[in-house]
């Protein structure tokens, strides 16, 4: 019997990097490589400005808000969905939490408002998708258009300056020399990693995205899980909104413009697959940092935007190719 058993067991017929278990790791290795490459370029092209701690922290700060959103997005995509409304939800939360009325409640009140607004809107997405059976793309697209409109209406097309000191100073404050915003980003990433890899919520997310029917047959409440995922994404938007507001010392319906694209791109370049069921938090983190670093490099070398874009396109392609490269491809076509 047992020998038969072993016969059915897969042979170790492939070298370690082909083994799927290690694949996320490999992908991240690839992205880290890309990041290293960018750093080298930075050191060469802008030796005296790039490596300064000031600049590095600046990069991370720029990455923080979009990073928080990307983490939420990662969960949604792994769960087999997509959320186009993140940018708009950021704007909506930002505007809502900076209305004169809200500012009356001080920093805490603003944070609370931002989180609630984001979460509620996210939940609406989730309900439309899970119970209204709308395609995620359409449901969140509708939310994107609608929320942006609502934000414009609330702000009455004006930028709303913040008078709450605690918020205005948030972007400047540091803890042990590290900007608070960066710390928040780090915290969210850590929590995200734990939730995805160590909790039933995380595992069920993977199950729902990987094979919804199997998840259903295994007794998982797929719809509930879906709603929770979009609510989570909304929550991240709320938090990000406050971070954006803190940086801008103002709330405006134009904030968070095209964040959806950046967040999705970061997640996907980080190895999360749009078909769902697979992805890593660390990958998305790296993805965001890579994109921010690219932009920073351009500014340091102050290239004109049009050139920036051309080069950026090339870099993205290059990055992914590097990251995909596997020695085995040299001699094995499948």
């Amino acid at each position: 019997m047992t020998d038969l058993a072993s016969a059915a067991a897969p042979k170790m017929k492939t070298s370690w990097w082909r083994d799927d278990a290690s694949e996320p790791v490999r992908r991240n290795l690839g992205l880290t490589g890309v990041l290293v490459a960018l750093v080298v370029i930075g050191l060469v092209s802008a030796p005296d400005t790039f490596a300064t701690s000031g600049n590095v922290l600046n990069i991370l700060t720029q990455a923080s808000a979009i990073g928080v959103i990307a983490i939420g997005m990662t969960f949604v995509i792994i769960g087999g969905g997509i959320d186009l409304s993140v940018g708009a939800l950021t704007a909506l939360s930002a505007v809502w939490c900076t209305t004169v009325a809200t500012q009356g409640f001080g920093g805490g009140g603003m944070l609370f408002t931002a989180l609630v607004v984001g979460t509620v809107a996210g939940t609406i997405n989730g309900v439309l998708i899970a119970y209204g059976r709308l395609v995620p793309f359409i449901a969140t697209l509708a939310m994107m258009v609608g929320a942006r409109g609502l934000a414009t209406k609330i702000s009455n097309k004006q930028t709303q300056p913040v008078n709450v000191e605690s918020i205005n100073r948030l972007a400047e404050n540091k803890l042990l020399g590290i900007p608070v915003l960066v710390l928040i980003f780090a915290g969210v990433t850590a929590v995200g990693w734990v939730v995805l890899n160590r909790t039933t919520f995380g595992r069920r997310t993977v199950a729902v995205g990987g094979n919804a029917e199997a998840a259903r047959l295994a007794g998982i409440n797929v719809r509930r899980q879906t709603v929770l995922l979009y609510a989570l994404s909304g929550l991240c938007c709320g938090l990000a909104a406050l971070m954006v507001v803190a940086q801008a010392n103002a709330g405006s319906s134009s904030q968070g413009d095209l964040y959806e694209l950046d967040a999705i791109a970061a997640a996907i370049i980080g190895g999360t697959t749009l078909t769902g069921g697979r992805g890593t938090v660390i990958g998305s983190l790296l993805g965001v940092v890579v994109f921010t670093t690219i932009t920073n490099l351009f500014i340091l070398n102050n290239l004109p935007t049009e050139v920036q874009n051309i080069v950026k396109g090339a870099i993205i392609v290059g990055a992914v190719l590097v990251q995909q490269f596997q020695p085995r491809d040299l001699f094995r076509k499948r």
Partner: protein
Amino acid sequence: TSNNQAAVPATAPAQQSSGKPGKPITIGFSAPAADHGWLAAITADAQARAKQYPEVTLKTVEAGQDATAQRAALQTLIQEKPDVIVVLPFDGAQLTATGRAAMQAGIPVINLDRQFSDELAFRVLIRGDNYGMGVAAGHFIGERLKTAGTSAPVIAEIAGIDNLPLTQDRSRGFKEALSSYGFKVSHRVAAEFTIDSGQKVTANLLQAAPKLDAVWNHDDDQGVGVLAAINQAGRKEFLMVGGAGSRKAMEQIRADNTVLKATVTYSPTMSGSAVSLARLIANGRGIGDLVELTVPKEIRLASETVTKDNVADYIGLGF
């Protein structure tokens, strides 16, 4: 291209106050990057102006696609410690903190066009007059219709990006000016400062209003699309006023073969002037013919109305 023409007439005043070249000066410059004629001209004019002064080096950092990106750009710029920073912010309020940071770092900031929400965030504010622009357009249309004796005219407004505060100011000015004639805006649509959007909204607008008396289009760039749509619909019964004052618009006014009868300026040459002011500040000088020893805190350009009659004087400033 357009920036040379823009620069030429602006040279004249420069000579008087500048005198002999002073110590070398680095001026940091940042404006939103957008595929838009006016913004392109802003950058171009600044560069052209800087070329006039041998001792001035202009360090332009493109500000990317939104306030966040521009903030990043400016923070990097501040780290490089130029003598003066000239900045046209995406959104004054959203970049006030950064402006303040620069001032605290001892770098005088010249706030171009879109005002910071905090006085401490800039040394000089030089800007156009959005409200005044609307007023000018309103008065021109009002006068024309009154003299034509049109009662209860149908007036349409084609705004730019609608959630920008500057669009709001322009519309407010337009509305208030018209009301002084007892007129009101009966159709208002908003485009995106792009040709496409201009064409689309206008095509629809012309359907919504089978008969029009006057149209104000906030922006001559999107105006290209607006006029295209008007031609395609074969509409001629109304008069149109443009905004900002692009070269093409002025040529059309001069040719007088389209519905476009006037445009109200919002001149990008202000960036050229900003560079000059930056130089004066760096050298601790005042403006030549003024009594004050230093540059004043605020300068606001007047929005002028360019018509067939005076277009010759302005066409050089068109972008």
